[in-house]
């Protein structure tokens, strides 16, 4: 079984991100940020960027993108922030609050009961 990243030469991961090995603390992408493509892939684009734009034709969470690309989450976040900066994807971040919104909790309960 191949796990993302683990069996790859580290060099490959460094190359993917232009030498960056971890996303900075200001990287906005949460594991469950939903990413949506804002354009089609264009010829000559880095293959991982092409793959992300195809995956995100419908909203797709960061963690699903990482799993599909078989890349560590941190590398996926870097690729996504590049695409976001270029306006090629948009990001729907989770609504974070110090205390969860009671309305959201109620919606979660309704959704779970309907399973």
């Amino acid at each position, binding site marked *: 079984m191949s796990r*993302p990243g683990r069996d790859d030469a580290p060099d490959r991961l460094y190359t993917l991100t232009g030498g960056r090995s971890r996303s900075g603390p200001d990287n906005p992408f949460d594991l469950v940020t*939903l990413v949506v493509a804002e354009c089609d892939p264009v010829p000559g684009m880095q293959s991982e960027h092409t793959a992300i734009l195809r995956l995100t034709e419908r909203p797709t969470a960061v963690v699903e993108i990482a799993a599909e690309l078989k890349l560590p989450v941190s590398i996926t976040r870097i690729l996504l922030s590049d695409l976001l900066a270029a306006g090629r994807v948009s990001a729907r971040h989770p609504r974070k609050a110090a205390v969860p919104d009671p309305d959201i909790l109620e919606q979660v309960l309704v*959704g779970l009961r309907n399973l």
Partner: protein
Amino acid sequence: MDSATSETRPAAETRTPLGASADNGLKIVVVGGFGAGKTTMVRSVSEIRPLNTEETMTQAGEAVDDISGVRGKTATTVAFDFGRITLDSRNVLYLFGAPGQERFWFLWDRLFSGTLGAVVLVDTRRIDDSWYAIDRLEKHGTPFIVACNDFGGPTFTPQQIREALDLDPHVPLVNCDARSRESSKIVLITLVEHIRSLYADPARASRQELV
């Protein structure tokens, strides 16, 4: 007891995409020792086959400029499973199966900040495996419940399990069969009801705040 493992799916066309209006991802984490049934529970309720990914974090310093310097640093890598439940047109719940071992907790904040709460899945034949996870969740202030997965082993009274885990009396303790969708669903509902009651009671909310 069947044991589920996560699978790496070969073809992208087997993906089940979310609806176009989905805009709010939520997290619940299932923490448990090896073989406690985390992936089984995730699979029981997930609308997708559980996927697997991993995160790596370098503990000290930056490895950006000097790859040869990586040798001296401690890299922490944890693999985790996840599944997905579409709750309604906007809310999507992601369910993560996470190992409870020590190195995993270095990555907790990075991966699971803002999580609604956690299920500690206990194999009653190995109760001690859950000790550390409960201790860490309390330290992080993450709301949690304890679910004992039925492996057909010796049965303990709830009181015996509470004592073995030194569990705070207000933390719900339930039995479950992680192979059962209905049973796993009840575990999740119990967790969310617990979270709701915590935040409805300000005295408790101040003790257990989200990270």
